[in-house]
């Protein structure tokens, strides 16, 4: 333990703590910008590059960045000396002098740390105006917009992409004033192995990275008389949307959200959870087949488009391992434009499928050519939780005052197994619930597989089902996925089934979710809400969903049938590792 004084207040902290940690302990918030700490994932951006957090330390010739200066015994720190205040204001001034001050029209308006700092420090004008960076905005991808004119070189995106996700496409480029974070050789994201997980967007404290915005396309579709517009909502959206609209984190907003979607003007409000149940039917069928034949094991889940793109680029030799089942989003689209279209007597091109996703990679997934049979996309527009929140606000809907309502049928009914797709471990738990029943031919009651729940990056369990020891693992975060995949490649793993999600913690922490601003306790609350929703459901196993049963009996016949294969399965392609 070290004893030090901050602004003449005594504080004792553990060895290895920074001045920032110590100040926090006595209730002093030193402003930061480049520093990012996601404690529950053990991720820290500690570049010390913005210099906003500089403080005065006795007997030190220059100011010290609080975020990365370790405390030592007897240290005397002044956070609010005039020297420190002036330096901080100058740093902010300099950052603003090279930052487009277009806050009112910025995608991160209201979610920008630089904006907050300017307000907190009450900077009235920029003293050091001068030349500004000029970059073309990268609009090439379906998912992520890069506006480097707003980049402040905090490198948080780099830490998210390279350290946490190990996708590794972002790097500091150029020198001096031209320095910027970018893929190598100034490439657009579409020319790289970017998986569009969107963790960089969540990490970016300013508007340099944001999602590609499709709200207006949705408004146009809703207002097009000739189209039937159906919406599907992903499992993790219902436990997070409330944060955008005045509810407490962790409040389940399913019923209010359905009401709001109707008020927005969607013709049918359906649920991706229905398709999640369908995914379990197909994926579990595949799992059992592979286990019985003892081949192509382990089976890897394939619901997450970020993860899918990751292995296509970086582990093409394992391309036979993931389940061929499409993701719930795409299954929903395919069923809507076939089964449901037939039911309501519409042509697929006259139906617009809008999906609300916690994810940015879903925008990319929906645009993959194999998901547009005859040129008609199964999912026409994918928007994020944040975008839906914005639409509800724009429509003037007082969300917190809304009554609950139910999803429409037939594609709105779902089970507890489906809702847990939103948390890391949920897909595997849902599959185990069904697999256990199918293998034992019983209706098992003990269906909570606690070992695979939680925000930890890597979990594993051995589950005895009908005398069979199923070894399963769950990883979330692509950095954790890489470690496991390397083990698989080296023949060091003996798992039967593995769930992999690109985002740490799973979809509840997706790149399209409301920004948590490093407050990871919010993720814990979302997770609890998801399992609360599950345990409150009458039906908690996918194969017991009555509308799923109906879908098979009326249309698909059985899991793994030729029609199921045509509509609900896909294949993967090896992509360049650049």
């Amino acid at each position, binding site marked *: 333990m070290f004893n030090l004084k901050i602004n003449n207040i005594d504080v004792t902290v553990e060895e290895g703590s920074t001045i920032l940690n110590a100040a926090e302990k006595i209730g002093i918030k030193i402003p930061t910008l480049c520093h990012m700490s996601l404690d529950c994932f053990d991720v820290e951006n500690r570049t010390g590059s913005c*210099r906003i957090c500089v403080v005065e330390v006795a007997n030190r010739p*220059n100011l010290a960045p609080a975020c990365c200066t370790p405390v030592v015994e007897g240290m005397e720190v002044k956070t609010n000396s005039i020297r420190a205040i*002036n*330096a901080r204001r*100058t740093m902010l001034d300099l950052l603003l002098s090279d930052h487009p001050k277009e806050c009112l029209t910025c995608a991160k308006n209201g979610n920008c740390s630089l904006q907050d700092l300017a307000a907190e420090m009450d900077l009235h004008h920029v003293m050091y105006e001068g030349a500004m960076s000029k970059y073309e905005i990268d609009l090439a991808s379906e998912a992520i917009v890069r506006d480097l004119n707003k980049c402040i070189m905090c490198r948080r995106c780099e830490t998210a992409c390279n350290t946490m996700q190990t996708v590794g496409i972002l790097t*500091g480029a150029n*020198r001096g*004033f*031209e*320095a910027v974070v970018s893929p190598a050789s100034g490439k657009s994201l579409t020319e790289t192995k970017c998986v569009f997980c969107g963790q960089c967007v969540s990490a970016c404290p300013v508007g340099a990275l944001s999602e590609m915005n499709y709200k207006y396309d949705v408004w146009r579709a809703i207002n097009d008389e000739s189209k039937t517009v159906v919406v599907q909502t992903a499992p993790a959206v219902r436990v997070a949307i409330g944060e955008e609209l005045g509810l407490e984190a962790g409040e389940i907003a399913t019923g209010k959200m359905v009401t709001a979607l109707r008020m927005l003007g969607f013709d049918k409000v359906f649920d991706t959870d229905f398709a999640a149940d369908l995914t379990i039917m197909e994926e579990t069928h595949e799992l059992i087949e592979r286990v019985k034949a003892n081949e192509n094991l382990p089976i890897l889940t394939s619901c997450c488009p970020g993860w899918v793109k990751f292995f296509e680029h970086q582990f093409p030799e394992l391309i036979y391992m993931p389940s061929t089942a499409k993701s719930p989003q795409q299954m929903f689209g395919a069923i809507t434009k076939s089964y449901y279209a037939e039911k309501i007597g519409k042509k697929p091109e006259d139906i617009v499928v809008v999906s609300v996703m916690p994810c940015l990679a879903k925008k990319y997934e929906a645009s993959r050519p194999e998901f547009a049979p005859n040129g008609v996309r199964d999912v026409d527009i994918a928007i994020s939780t944040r975008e839906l929140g914005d639409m509800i606000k724009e429509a003037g809907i007082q969300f917190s005052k809304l009554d609950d309502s139910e999803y429409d049928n037939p594609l709105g009914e779902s089970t507890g197994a489906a809702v847990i797709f939103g948390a890391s471990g949920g897909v595997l738990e849902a599959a185990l619930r069904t697999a256990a029943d199918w293998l034992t031919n019983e209706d098992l009651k003990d269906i909570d597989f606690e070992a695979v729940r939680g925000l930890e990056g890597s979990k594993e369990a051995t589950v005895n089902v009908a005398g069979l020891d199923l070894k399963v693992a769950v990883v979330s975060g692509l950095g954790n996925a890489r470690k496991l995949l390397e083990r698989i490649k080296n023949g060091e793993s003996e798992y039967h089934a593995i769930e992999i999600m690109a985002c740490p913690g799973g979809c509840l922490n997706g790149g399209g979710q409301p920004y948590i601003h490093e407050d990871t306790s919010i993720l814990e609350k979302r997770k609890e809400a998801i399992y609360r929703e599950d345990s409150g459901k009458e039906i908690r196993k996918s194969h017991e969903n009555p509308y799923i049963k109906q879908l098979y009996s009326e249309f698909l016949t059985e899991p793994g049938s030729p029609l199921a294969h045509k509509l609900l399965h896909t294949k993967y392609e090896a992509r360049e590792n650049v």
Partner: protein
Amino acid sequence: MIKDANGLIDYTEALKNQSSSELKLYVSMGTCGIAAGTTPVLNKIYQTIEEKNLKDIIDVVEVGCMGLCHSEPCICLENKETNEKVYYGNLSEEQVVQILEAKFDTELAGAKVLNKTWNTPEDEEISDQIQTRIVLRNSGVINPEKIEDYVMRDGYKALAKALTEMKPAGVVSEIELSGLRGRGGGGFPTGRKWQFAASQDADQKYLICNADEGDPGAFMDRAVLEGDPHSVLEAMVIAGYGIGADKGYIYIRAEYPLAIKRLEIAIAQAEELGFLGENILGSGFNFTIELKYGAGAFVCGEETALIHSIEGKRGEPTFKPPFPAISGLWGKPTIVNNVETFANVAAIIRNGADWFKSIGTEGSPGTKVFALAGKINKVGLVEVPMGTVLRDIIYGLGHGIVDGREFKAVQTGGPSGGCIKADKLDTPIDYESLKALGSMMGSGGMIVMDEDDCMVDIAKFFLDFTLEESCGKCTPCRIGNTRLHELLEDICSGNGTMETIEKLKTLSAAIKDTALCGLGQTSPNPVISTLNNFYDEYMQHVDRKKCPAGVCTKLVSYTINDKCVGCTLCARNCPVSCISGERKELHHIDQSKCIKCGVCYTACKFHAIDRT
């Protein structure tokens, strides 16, 4: 392969006993010499020796830089019997023949004879020469591509002494006692740095030689590597032994091809003789050296950036602590020392800490190599004891200012240093005194300026360099220096106000106080020191909108006085045709069109054009 210390003694004796010719002819084959045309001179020497059949009397030694850059191509003729040496400079091929024929009859030779201005305390009696060569002792004396030449000059003797007579801790403490300080600029005590790494308990430690010399106008390290590469290799093995590292890297900029070539040769020779590799001199100690090439980024001279560059990452500094001595290359304890620092080590081990401390000042023992450049008569490389006064260097060694002009300032410490005024010329220089003058030792660049240099423009020039070379990582360096540069540009173009001056001051102070690495923290130094020392000149720009040195073109105006005879030469040469006037009548410059190029000023033969 030399098996042990005795083997080295025998080998050295055998080399010394070899018969040599009556005369030795040293030919300066460093990059500076080659660039100035030494190669044809050398060819002519070989040709003449062949033709005149002088092979038995003259040995030709191709050496590195002698430090006489102002007089390249140059050679030195030595009489082995009398030890008499004559230096010839600015040689032509024709003169070579005469010199070889005349031998020591310098008048007959008709070539320019140069004075030797240095003393090498290891080899000669102390004299009153201004220069004292420890680092450059072998440079210009031995053939850097022949390990035998180095060994004959007591090369690898220090290594043998360290490995056989000293414990690792003894090596570290000897360096610590010597007071040797880092010559790369920071001046941190080398022995103490080694001590940090030596006290680390680690399975692997690394040693890095920083040869990423990047200051504009600095070429000390290049001269050492080209002229005496083994001195660095020997020191690295000694340091490795001291701190417990068995792997060394030399991080050298790829723009130094000759230094790289000579290092490669030297490493191969040292490996062959057993000074590098396994069980060196039978001691059981192993050490290998690998070259790593830098891509020319100035910031990679900063030790953490350098380490990242070797690791294959973007060359940008990271926050210290942890210091590399604790956690450096690949997370292992790593010592980074500069070329010149290493070049002192063998001499210290050979002669002892007390000997080293007898040279230089108490706080800064030893010598420092400076690269003299700018408006000075004798541009070149000099090595002086710490504490030498600036005047002795600039006037004694550099022979004063070109064309007898007035000395205005000297910039030391490269782009991170500051400008020192004439009234401080009698300051004895060491790390502390330069810092007190608002400058720094830096790596040893010394750029001399005269009355034609505008100090605002000079500050802008150095900042230009920093802007180009900043890695752009931290806010103050990336944006702050850009804004500083813009403020200077405002002043130079006549848009400066008192507010601009105030902003320059406060922003410079903020950058110094907040930047992440040494490059950023020192980048405003040229601005601060010129503001402090040449405030009047700034005020002339701001108040009167005039540049006294006539450098800032936007503040200069050209007018024609009544000395004009109407020859029309100026009008005919003016690129924008803004000069009018009839033949034989007074001409006139249209100020609204004048681009201030100065062509008329140069063209006029009657001093009829005033520049104000």
